[in-house]
C-alpha cells in the first residue's frame, strides 16, 4: 500500500465537523417531528375511508415508500426550482426528509391503530368523552407505545438519509466533510472520521430513545 494517512487536517477541522454533525441532528429531529405529525394525519385520512381525501394520502405514502429518497430530495430541490420555487438547502432537506418520514410512519401508525381494539373507542365514548379526547387520551398513547421501536428505526434512517443533503448543497455533516476533503485531498481520512461521528449520533439517539421509552412507556407492562 503506497497511501500515507494524514490525520492532522482532519483534527484541525474537527470542530467544524462536530458543528455540522449537530446540524445533521437538528434537521433529522425536526424532520422526524414533522414526519410524526404529517404521518399521523395521513394515517387518519387513510383510515377515514373518504375517497376524495384518501387518494391524496395514498399517493403520498406510495411515492415516499416506493421511489428513491434521492429523487424525492431532487424533487424538492431541482424539481420545484424548475417551477421557480427556490428553497434554501436546509428547507429542501427538511421537506424531503419530512415527506419521506411521513410516508413510512403513516403505514406504521395505521398498523398501530389496527392493533388497538375498537372496543377501546366504545368504552371511552360511553364515558362521554369526545372523539378528540378519546383519541388523544386513550388511543394515540397506546398506538405510540406499539409503534415506538419502528419509530426509533425511522429516526435513525432520518439521520442517515440526511447525508443525501450534500447533493443539494447542504453543509450538514456529509456536505461539510465533502467540502473539507476536497480542499485537503484527505478524502478517506475525513470520511472515516465522519463515519465515526454518524455512529456516535445514532448511538446518542438510540440512548435518548431508550430514556424516553423508560419514562413514558414502561408503565403498564405485564
Amino acid at each position, binding site marked *: 500500500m503506497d497511501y500515507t494517512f494524514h490525520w492532522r487536517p482532519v483534527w484541525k477541522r474537527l470542530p467544524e465537523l462536530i458543528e455540522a454533525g449537530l446540524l445533521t441532528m437538528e434537521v433529522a429531529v425536526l424532520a422526524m417531528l414533522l414526519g410524526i405529525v404529517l404521518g399521523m394525519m395521513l394515517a387518519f385520512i387513510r383510515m377515514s375511508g373518504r375517497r376524495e381525501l384518501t387518494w391524496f394520502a395514498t399517493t403520498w405514502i406510495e411515492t415516499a415508500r416506493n421511489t428513491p429518497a434521492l429523487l424525492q430530495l431532487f424533487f424538492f430541490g431541482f424539481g420545484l426550482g424548475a417551477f421557480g420555487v427556490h428553497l434554501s438547502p436546509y428547507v429542501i432537506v427538511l421537506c424531503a426528509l419530512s415527506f419521506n418520514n411521513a410516508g413510512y410512519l403513516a403505514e406504521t401508525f395505521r398498523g398501530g391503530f389496527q392493533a388497538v381494539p375498537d372496543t*377501546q373507542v366504545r*368504552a371511552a365514548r*360511553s364515558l*362521554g368523552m369526545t372523539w378528540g379526547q378519546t383519541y388523544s387520551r386513550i388511543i394515540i398513547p*397506546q398506538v405510540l407505545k406499539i409503534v415506538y421501536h419502528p419509530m426509533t428505526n425511522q429516526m435513525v434512517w432520518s439521520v442517515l438519509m440526511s447525508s443525501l443533503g450534500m447533493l443539494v448543497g447542504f453543509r450538514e455533516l456529509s456536505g461539510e466533510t465533502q467540502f473539507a476533503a476536497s480542499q485537503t485531498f484527505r478524502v478517506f481520512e475525513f470520511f472515516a472520521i465522519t463515519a465515526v461521528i454518524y455512529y456516535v449520533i445514532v448511538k446518542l439517539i438510540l440512548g435518548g430513545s431508550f430514556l424516553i421509552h423508560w419514562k413514558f412507556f414502561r*408503565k*403498564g*407492562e405485564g
Partner: protein
Amino acid sequence: MIEINNVSKSFGSLEVLKGIDLKVEKGEVLSVIGASGSGKSTLLYCINALEPIQGGEIRVDGIDVHGAKTDVNKLRRHIGMVFQQWNSFPHMTTLENVALAPRIVLGKTKAEAREIAARQLDHVGLGDKLDTYPTNMSGGQQQRLAIARALAMEPDYMLFDEVTSALDPELVGEVLDTLKMLSEEGMTMILVTHEIPFARDVSDRVAFFRQGVIEEIGPPSQVIGDPTSEHTKQFLSNVR
C-alpha cells in the same frame, strides 16, 4: 325513565331489532335474556347512541337519543355502560382509569377526580389496587374496575352487556356480587346476561328476546319460573 318506542335497527340487510317497545322506570332492574344474535346487546348500544337506529325512537329522561340536535357526549354522562370485554385502559393505573372521565368530561379538579375514583374503586372492592396497572389484574378485577369507572360519572342508568361472559368461571361470582350490590343500592340497570339464576334473583322484570322482538316480558317468577311462550321454555331448558 328509558322509553323505547317501536325501535328497529339493521346491519346492512340484516334486521336485528324489529320494532322494540320497552319502558324502564327509575330504580328498576331489567334483565334481558335470549340466544346470541337475538338483538339484546345491540339494544344497549342503541340506548347510548353507540349505534344508530333505523326506525322508532329512544328517549332517556325525555331526551331523544338519536335526535339530530342531541349532544350525545352530554347524554352519555347519565348512562354508564360496561362491556363484555372489560376494556380497561392499559396505559393507566386503576386510579387513573377511573379518574380520567370525571376530570376531562365533568371538569372536576384532579384532586376531586382522584377522590371520586378512590371511593368508587373501594366500593367495588379494589381499594388496595389503586396504583396497579390493569394488565396485572385478573379479568374479574378488571371488570369491576370497568364498573367503578362507569359509576364514577355518577350515572342515572347503568347498562351491562354480558359482563360475565368473557370471564373464567371462578371469577364470575365476584362480578355478580358487585352487580347485586348496585341493584340493592337502587341503581337503575339493564342487564344483558346469560346468568339465568342471577337474573331471576336480582331483576324486577325479565325480557326474553328472540330474533329481534320481545317474545315475553314480566316478573322473573313468571318469565323464568313459569314462561308462557314455547320459545322461552325451549331457551330456558337449553341454557340450564
